[in-house]
């Protein structure tokens, strides 16, 4: 898929266009080769200038690029023997989440991935990565099979949020998410989550309770999207860049807040520039973490997961100001 550019990437796009045009000329003389070399250097400079210093909102935009590798791409690249399973055994099969069994570097696993598409037809099939209650229930059913058969769970998170629709509400979106979160605390197998793109709110945590959570360098994870936050707190979605800043939603922020264990580096400019490197980086980090988790006993796995989330929060024990009475 061709690479798309946002406004802030204009200098990169221009440098790339110039280079492409020069390369298209069928010339072999030395002057031309020098010209190409010069243009290549300019492109590299532009890329370093733009991508070496991304703002939080620019990372959000990169995380949303349609050509960015999606969950199904990571599953294809990183696993073998993949066998998809379908349906929540109650209502329907939600295609926004891909569930199945697979081998990951020699280990039989269950994989769960929130899918996004690249064009209209795919987008509609995957509902833009927004799951319905039956999606959360399908994921839970699959994860319970993992727990039953002692298989580690690999989760790929990439969602702009749980689907906010009438039927989703009627079928109990809140119940589906809440139940998933609670049940994920009962599992005695390793749960390894990777935020590969967007980690929006309840839609993400609804499959995101892990012993370890990895996050790609340009992924974001927050209680609300920057646009949602801006339209509420600034009363104008145009303030999304400011909201992205305030929400502390980058991988670096989440590492510092001890919400994620590791940042997985991406190729300069984003995973889509060099998907194979992105797959290898995530695969290696997953393998390293999984190897450690597999050393824990079933009870230790459950307890470690509990302890990790039990410890989250920031407050003061303010004895002077407690309510009198």
């Amino acid at each position, binding site marked *: 898929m061709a690479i798309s550019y946002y406004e802030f990437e204009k200098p990169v796009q221009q440098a790339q266009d110039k280079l492409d045009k020069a390369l298209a000329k069928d010339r072999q003389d030395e002057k031309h080769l020098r010209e190409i070399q010069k243009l290549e250097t300019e492109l590299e400079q532009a890329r370093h200038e733009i991508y070496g210093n991304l703002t939080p909102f620019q990372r959000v935009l990169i995380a949303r690029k349609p050509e960015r590798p999606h969950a199904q791409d990571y599953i294809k690249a990183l696993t073998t023997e993949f066998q998809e399973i379908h349906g929540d055994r109650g209502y329907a099969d939600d295609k926004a989440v891909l569930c199945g069994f697979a081998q990951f570097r020699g280990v039989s696993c269950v994989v769960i991935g929130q899918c996004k598409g690249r064009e209209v037809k795919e987008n509609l099939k995957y509902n833009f990565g927004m799951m319905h209650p039956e999606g959360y229930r399908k994921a839970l059913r699959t994860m319970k099979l993992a727990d039953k058969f002692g298989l580690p769970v690999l989760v790929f998170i990439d969602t702009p949020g749980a689907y906010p629709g009438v039927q989703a509400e009627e079928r109990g979106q809140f119940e589906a998410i*809440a139940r998933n979160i609670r049940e994920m605390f009962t599992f005695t197998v390793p749960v390894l989550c990777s935020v590969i793109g967007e980690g929006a709110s*309840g839609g993400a945590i609804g499959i995101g309770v892990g012993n370890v959570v990895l996050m790609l360098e340009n992924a974001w994870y927050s*209680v609300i999207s920057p646009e949602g*936050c801006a339209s509420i707190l600034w009363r104008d979605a145009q303030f999304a860049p400011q909201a992205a800043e305030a*929400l*502390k939603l980058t991988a670096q922020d989440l590492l510092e*807040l001890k919400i994620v264990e590791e940042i997985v580096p991406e190729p300069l400019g984003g995973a889509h520039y060099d998907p194979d490197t992105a797959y290898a980086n995530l695969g290696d980090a997953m393998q390293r973490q999984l190897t450690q988790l597999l050393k824990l006993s079933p009870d230790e796995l459950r307890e470690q997961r509990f302890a990790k989330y039990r410890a989250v929060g920031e407050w003061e024990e303010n004895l002077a*100001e407690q309510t009198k009475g």
Partner: protein
Amino acid sequence: MPWFEKKPKFSSLPGAVRPSNVPEGLYEKCPDCYSMIYRKEFEENLHVCPKCHYHARVSARERIVMLVDPGTFQEDNSHLSPVDKLQFEAKKKYSKQIEEGRKKTGQLDAIVSGIGKIHGKTASLAIMDFTFLGGSMGSVVGEKVTRAMERALAERIPVITVTATGGARMMESILSLMQMAKTSALCAELDRAGIPFISVLSDPSTAGVMASFAALGDVIIAEPRCLVGFAGRRVIEQTVREHLPKGFQTAEFVQEHGFVDIVCERRELRGVLARLLNHLWYASPKRKSDGNGRSRAGSERSSKKTQAVEQAVAQ
């Protein structure tokens, strides 16, 4: 409904805000049908409109008075105070909003917890307060719900939560989101220990709180016509571009779809809770074979820091 879209609530409680155009008088206006109601009648009716039956919002402290046997409520963890870890600033600084909430409610955050008796039956209680930053759940709310559940585990008593919330608190971003996980983790512990959890939903109970502990009660009770749901109305309307069905996301609607057990008038809530406490716990054969039902086993769950602070408070 997001917390910032609150309906006007004309409370008679000290400390509550009163719009300047409403005189401090004998009457108040029903927020729903706009009838003028004799204030005393409104209060005696537990802030339920005698004309249209609208259940007006009540503060956590009013709720305690309505639910708990007089003189039996012992508050705990009232010293937990929010901090602006992310130094969040939108149009206003979060630290400033905390200050304002404090002045407005006389509380440090949007929740009051403790133990109390309902018709003589002891329960651990966590009661949310919509008046403080829209009842949003940040670290303090999440921690107090968690500790209320830990106390229930340690003392082997049921736990009751009453929610009044627009969801997770944006100004604590990911830390708020993780409170959904933390409180739900304790629900899993309650399951394992066989301790009952009753979730009471009042207006509104939505978003991140509804998609975590509030939806995980063994029994879920909602007040009539209160708003219960995950996504906000506006967001849904923008997404589906269609008119929302009548009564969408009301307690009755959610019960009709199978996600709430009991829709219960405020006047009857106390009796229903007492009955459930009895059925699920105090009269249950399982609990009776459980020894005196008061063992402190499991108290190692509450952190050393907490215990130290509690001791300091007791002295």
